[in-house]
């Protein structure tokens, strides 16, 4: 029959124009094609050419159009008119805003720059903001790393010159077995999903180690529902099995790690446990060819793992000797750890055996000749195709640094770091701790700080202490309490500033951090500190200046608001000087540019800093004649020179013969070149430089050419981290700088230069609070900012507490029930839901869904505020008082990383229900409320 069906236009016009920029719905920084109609954003999709996402886009990225148009966007600078927290503001001009800011900042800088604390949350421009802070002269600068994942970053860098996340990734194309520890989402959101897709398609095996089986762990072929906080023990137990069976890569360990380096064993000596060094300070090994002492990197030297050196009646043995002795000990036998970890001994053995099987029986070889730093030529690249990935699940614990170390050591012992099929670094990493700056804290009124704030300490001399031994920084980073706190400790700023310990500050200047809400521990407490007044009725923290783009909870607690643009309305650069977006096979950086002009009186925060920097006359922000150096951030991005030939962007710089990537002079048209190219620059790593990067001269030379560093700097992996031993020596009484008595024992114990495991349960009162409470990132939400998004909030509008079968039945919970959750610090009332694929003693919820009434331009009865909640109210920045009445920070004793996941709770059925508790009085919305209904369409 004649089938008369309607005619459909199958080739409608898609858009007037496509503008390519970089997503910032999260920190993964994928490339996006923004389809424009009538000059407005019509549709956003992934950029197929982009190194990060190769065309794919996550839920958040695709919802960008609802973010750029969110009713919660701030409209103009504002000054607080009501009480802090009320949300009552008055819109002002930028000139007024700058005047107010100057009236606070100028005197501070002239008298005592340390009275300013400048902390920058989810900052993607740290090389810029830190330059500003350095110019201002305050020691009190950091971004959010300290409460995020510094354990992962620092452990990786101290051990092998880089970690996972944006530093490194599994060799997705070659790996045959991936073990993924404690990851729900990670920064590398899309690449990890793409990678998992790849290895799944290949039928390679994925093992998920996680108390919770969702997301990545749901697709894992095997799930290890480990007891939280015990990964270190589990890892060291597998290491025990592997060493015992000789299933470790001896050749790799000899040549590329400090396993063969000799340790001073002079009993009680001031150098005990430090490397034996030659006169040039080179660590010494025994050369197997000659049997004699030799510098580890000597030409043609083949270091001996089992070497010994006898001198003055003392036998000095290698790091490897010590490792064997420690990890062969029965305390690491599977039987000894099984119960603690909640993994059977048989299972631990099986997994270790599988690692051995894949690493050694299924080794792969690439026919790529390369030359190492000792001048030795290798005709092929041998790979151990087991790979690991890991994130906050192991790092956000007080034993996280040592656990991350343990994992890195395990990979290295298997010879799977920087080898085919294993874990690969992304340029400009690898970069050893020694190649990073040390922390600086010398304050001079009216002048710049003596150097970069953040860095890597290599011993007591590098700590940021004042003459009297007190902390030089408001967050007490780089002190004996956490000597290796490389990212600072943003989570301590507000409580320390409130307590005036180590000293009082005048102005708290923050950017892009919702510190009165989801990014703070002890949220209710922090709210009190922010609003607390002294006897004369002044706020205890006198001034708070804050830059946000949206009507967040933090806005309400600030005195002066510098409204930022949305990510599609400004210039940004994702620089190699910051957190790079490179992939293992390519170096890349990218920009954002105003694909739409703001329709409000807002300004990119970095541009505002250019203005403020000039008004304050900060070095680097004014010309000789004192005039403003950078008109705005775009100007800075193009014209700033960091080191000869090196600026914020590495693409299309001016060289002898035309434009080039890497080093080069300023190119005035650089941003246009980026826009032309789709918003990013990328250059591929040469084939012979693709693996063994730290030891591979092919890579080293290329890295210098690209400008990652100025001279080749090959190095070996630090299984044994000598700086940690130096802190121990101090604790043992050696050296000038001595720790306070109450910290000696803890330092001796926790700063072990070889990975150890210790429990965090006693100090968290696990005997009375037996259940671990965790959070996970929802893939379709970014912290607090997803909720203002009309599409995303339909997916995650509220969050139940997920409870495992055992606890569900113990409390005979039923669907729709509410529970009271109590921690040593506080109590919340929340809805519960059942989950079977969950560790028996763990409960969890989605992170940062709960909102304060009145925030984010949502109705005050929005589900986020009535059925959504934060665990943060239960987590204190200090641990419960211990024996001697002391309260230690709820942080890793080495890095100061916030120990979010050590939270222990009790849970019981609640008779009250319907409104999550604590519940806060609404804040007034400075931007009004959103429209009732939406039907978004530009076309016709």
């Amino acid at each position, binding site marked *: 029959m004649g089938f008369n069906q309607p005619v459909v236009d199958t080739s409608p016009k898609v858009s007037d124009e496509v503008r390519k920029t970089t997503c910032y719905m999260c920190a993964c920084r994928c490339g996006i094609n923004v389809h424009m109609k009538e000059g407005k954003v019509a549709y956003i999709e992934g950029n197929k050419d982009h190194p990060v996402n190769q065309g794919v886009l996550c839920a958040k990225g695709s919802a960008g159009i609802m973010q750029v148009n969110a009713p919660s966007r701030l409209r103009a600078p504002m000054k607080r008119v009501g009480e802090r927290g009320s949300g009552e503001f008055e819109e002002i001009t930028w000139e007024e805003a700058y005047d107010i800011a100057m009236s606070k900042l100028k005197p501070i800088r002239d008298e005592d720059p340390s009275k300013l604390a400048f902390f920058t949350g989810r900052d993607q421009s740290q090389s810029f903001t830190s330059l500003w802070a350095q110019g201002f002269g305050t020691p009190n600068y950091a971004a959010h790393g300290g409460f995020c994942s510094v354990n992962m970053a620092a452990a990786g860098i101290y051990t092998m010159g880089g970690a996972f996340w944006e530093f490194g990734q599994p060799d997705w194309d070659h790996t045959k077995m991936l073990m993924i520890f404690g990851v729900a989402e990670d920064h590398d959101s899309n690449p990890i999903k793409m990678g998992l897709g790849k290895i799944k398609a290949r039928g390679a095996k994925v093992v998920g180690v996680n108390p919770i089986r*969702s997301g990545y762990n749901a697709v894992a072929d095997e799930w290890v529902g480990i007891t939280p906080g015990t990964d270190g023990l589990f890892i060291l137990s597998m290491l025990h099995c592997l060493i015992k069976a000789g299933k470790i890569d001896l050749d790799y360990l000899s040549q590329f790690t400090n396993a063969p380096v000799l340790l001073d064993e002079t009993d009680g000596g001031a150098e005990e446990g430090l490397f034996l060094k030659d006169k040039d300070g080179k660590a010494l090994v025994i050369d197997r060819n000659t049997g004699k002492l030799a510098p580890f990197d000597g030409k043609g030297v083949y270091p001996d793992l089992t070497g010994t050196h006898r001198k003055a009646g003392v036998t000095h043995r290698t790091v490897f000797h010590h490792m064997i002795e420690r990890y062969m000990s029965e305390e690491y036998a599977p039987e000894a750890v099984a119960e603690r970890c909640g993994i059977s001994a*048989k299972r631990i053995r099986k997994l270790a055996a599988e690692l051995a099987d894949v690493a050694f029986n299924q080794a792969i070889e690439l026919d790529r000749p390369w030359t190492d730093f000792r001048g030795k030529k290798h005709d092929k690249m041998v790979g151990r195709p087991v790979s690991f990935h890991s994130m906050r699940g192991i790092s956000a614990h007080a034993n996280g640094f040592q656990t991350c170390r343990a994992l890195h050591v395990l990979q290295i012992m298997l010879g799977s770091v920087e080898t085919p099929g294993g874990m690969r670094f992304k340029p400009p990493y690898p970069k050893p701790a020694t190649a990073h700056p040390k922390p600086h804290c010398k304050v001079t009124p009216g002048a710049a700080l003596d150097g970069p704030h953040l860095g890597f300490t290599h011993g007591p001399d590098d700590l940021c202490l004042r003459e009297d031994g007190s902390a030089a920084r408001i967050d007490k980073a780089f002190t004996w309490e956490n000597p290796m706190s490389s990212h600072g400790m943003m989570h301590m700023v507000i409580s320390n500033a409130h307590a005036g310990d180590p000293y009082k500050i005048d102005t708290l200047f923050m950017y892009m951090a919702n510190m009165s809400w989801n990014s703070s521990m002890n949220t209710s407490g922090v709210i009190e500190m922010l609003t607390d007044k002294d006897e004369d009725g002044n706020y205890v923290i006198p001034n708070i200046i804050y830059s946000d783009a949206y009507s967040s909870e933090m806005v309400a607690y600030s005195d002066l608001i510098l409204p930022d643009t949305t990510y599609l309305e400004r210039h940004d650069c994702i620089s190699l000087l910051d957190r790079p977006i490179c992939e293992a096979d390519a170096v890349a950086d990218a920009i954002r540019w105003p694909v739409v002009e703001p329709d409000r009186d807002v300004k990119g925060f970095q541009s505002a800093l250019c203005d403020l920097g000039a008004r304050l006359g900060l070095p680097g922000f004014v010309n000789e004649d004192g005039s403003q150096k950078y008109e705005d951030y775009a100007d800075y991005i193009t014209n700033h020179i960091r080191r000869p030939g090196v600026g914020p962007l590495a693409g299309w710089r001016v060289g002898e013969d035309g434009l080039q990537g890497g080093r080069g002079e300023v190119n005035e048209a650089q941003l246009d070149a980026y826009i032309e190219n789709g918003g990013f620059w990328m250059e591929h790593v040469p084939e012979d430089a693709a693996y063994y990067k730290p030891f591979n001269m092919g890579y080293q030379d290329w890295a210098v050419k690209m400008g990652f560093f100025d001279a080749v700097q090959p190095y070996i992996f630090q299984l044994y981290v000598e700086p940690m031993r130096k802190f121990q020596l101090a604790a043992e009484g050696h050296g000038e700088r001595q720790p306070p008595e109450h910290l000696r024992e803890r330092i001796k114990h926790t700063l072990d230069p070889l990975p150890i495991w210790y429990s965090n349960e006693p100090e968290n009162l696990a005997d009375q609070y037996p259940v671990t409470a965790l959070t996970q990132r929802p893939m379709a939400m970014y912290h607090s900012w997803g909720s203002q998004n009309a599409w995303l909030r339909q997916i995650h509008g509220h969050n139940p507490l997920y409870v495992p079968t055992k606890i569900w039945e113990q409390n005979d919970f039923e669907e729709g029930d509410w529970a009271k959750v109590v921690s040593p610090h506080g109590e919340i009332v929340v809805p519960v839901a059942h989950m079977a694929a969950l560790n028996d003693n763990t409960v969890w919820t989605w992170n940062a869904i709960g909102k304060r009434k009145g925030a984010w331009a949502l109705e005050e009865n929005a589900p986020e505020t009535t059925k959504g909640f934060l665990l943060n109210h239960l987590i204190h920045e200090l641990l419960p008082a211990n024996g001697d009445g002391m309260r230690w920070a709820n942080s890793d004793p080495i890095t100061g990383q916030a120990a979010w996941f050590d939270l222990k709770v009790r849970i019981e059925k609640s008779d009250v229900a319907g409104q999550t508790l604590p519940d806060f009085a609404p804040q007034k919305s400075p931007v009004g409320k959103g429209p009732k209904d939406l039907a978004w369409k530009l076309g016709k």
Partner: protein
Amino acid sequence: MTTLPTHTEKKLGLVIDLDTCVGCHACVVSCKGWNTENYGAPLSDQDAYGANPSGTFLNRVHSYEVQPEAGPAQLIHFPKSCLHCDDAPCVTVCPTGASYKRVEDGIVLVNEADCIGCGLCAWACPYGARELDQQEGVMKKCTLCVDRIYNENLPEEDRQPACVRTCPAGARHFGDLGDENSDVSKLVAERGGVDLMPEQGTKPVNKYLPPRLKDDYTNTGDIDILAPLLEPVAPDAKGILGWLDKALEKL
């Protein structure tokens, strides 16, 4: 015209890999984005910033927990959109002819110009693949991105559904399931793709690839096969060092 075509030249559809889907909702939102701006009326949202936000979505990702006889429970993310059934009850019940199945490719569409919004087609669909847009009052459903897959204004490689293009894990595949030599058909054969609710007799075109065998301690990792691998080379640290020397000699 609601009589179903006796035969369609192609059977275009999706193949969804439940072994790989991580449940990220990317497909859900990119679908919302594309179809809000394109085919027919926008997908509206009610009470968008209020107490009961709800809106029209053509693709939603469910998640299920499965408890096997032995072994730990499993969690499976489960995306669901129109399956473009061969025997589509949603089409035949439509009084106006707005609902129809295309002869050339088997795509089931709603011609919004004819739709009275009676909702009967949504009642007739077993899979919950149709949603009546509350603003426009017309029936909405997955169009299989009919305005992308043939779209001459898009580069060749982009002529695929928005959800497929965006899926980070590569868990969504698009193609002609009528042609047994197509990649999708091969994939379905290889992985034993299945129909949802076959008993409803709708003959879905879309297929689902079941999750691979999980937590199988016997196939790869049977300790008895692998045991020799962990055979101690020596009882204690001392012994290991002795063994080491020999091992190192061999290098």
